[in-house]
């Protein structure tokens, strides 16, 4: 969504790069030989961790976009509560109907939601919730020109 907030900045981007994998693109498997991957979100489930490792293996540069990917942010607010207790409270005690903990097609949660850099090497971090459009544009401009640098303006939250 923050990418869409780039407004007309996205047009210049479209000329310089192809978007090969994203929630907005129809690819089902993460392709090989990706130049830059922007990762958002904390690593909350085993599936997240596995996908992240695939991303790292197939990308030249990985950037953590947003507070969830840099600090784990709001997802980490569950981290001091055991998963079993959490699921029980939400899906059983808190449910108005069909009080059952979902499992079919739902990846198991990791004990804690943690930031991507604890699982893979992250080349650059862009904090923000969300990061400002101009900060994203500046980051993409750097990365597309082969520069890996800390953002010049930092704002968490």
């Amino acid at each position, binding site marked *: 969504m923050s990418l869409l907030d780039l407004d007309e900045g996205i047009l210049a981007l479209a000329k310089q790069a192809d978007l090969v994998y994203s929630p907005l693109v129809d690819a089902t498997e993460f392709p090989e030989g990706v130049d830059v991957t922007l990762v958002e979100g904390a690593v909350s489930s085993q599936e997240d961790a596995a996908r992240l490792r695939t991303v790292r293996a197939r990308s030249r540069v990985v950037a*953590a976009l947003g*507070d969830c990917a*840099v*600090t*784990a*942010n*709001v997802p*980490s*607010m569950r*981290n*001091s509560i055991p998963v079993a207790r959490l699921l029980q409270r939400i899906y059983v005690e808190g449910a108005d109907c069909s009080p059952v903990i979902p499992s079919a097609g739902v990846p198991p949660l990791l004990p*804690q939601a*943690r*930031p991507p*850099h*604890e699982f893979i090497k*992250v080349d650059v*971090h*862009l*904090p923000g*919730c969300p990061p400002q459009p101009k900060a994203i544009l500046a980051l993409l401009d750097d990365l597309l020109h082969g520069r890996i640098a*800390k*953002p010049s*303006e*930092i*704002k*968490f*939250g």
Partner: protein
Amino acid sequence: MIQKSKAISIRIEGELVPTREGKTILQAAREAGKNIPTLCHMDGLHDVGACRLCIVEIGGAGRLAPACTTPVQEGLSVVINSPRLAAYRRMILELLLAERNHICAVCVANGHCELQSLAAQLGVSSVRFRYRYPAMPVDLSQEKYVMDHNRCILCSRCVRVCAEVEGAHVWDIMGRGIHSRVISEMDQPWAEAASCTRCGKCVQACPTGAMAEKGRAVEEMVKRTDAVAVAAARKGDRT
């Protein structure tokens, strides 16, 4: 007649800075328009050197010392900015951010937080240390205020403002090291603190969203740290 203390001078990065005996390096630097980053310092309160953000390099050997508690001496030579100091200051902030749960996105102090501003200023865009995610309590007992230990950086400004300016001394720090915690009286809920005058100075002194007024939503808690300095001055405390 009040005797003025002896006029001396120190050198900050080679530049001669006139000051007076009895002042700290932090005071001398700031009075000369040179900034040294701090978190636990607050105008009007005695300095304790808790946060170590203000470390500077002293003398030829470049020995590290906290500027807020180190007195000036005639001929003292100080470096207040260097790559080494910048690296240590970033490390201190990263340790603070990893120690407890600092979630800016949903915090009342988002946008008005000294920890957040300092991280931005000193170039901290990620934390290299493993996040602890400790279970920390939130004290909602007090009628007007909230104490959220997740956001506390143990700067002790609340302890000092309540003890030195209000004179109530409701707050203290219990425990040591990683188990340190700000407590109200004998580690009781805030509402049970008999000495508390509900003045709210602690809330205004707190640099983060740890202490806030109830009824404030995300980003709405703006602190009036200047009010603390004024109150302290009125009380006749000397910095």
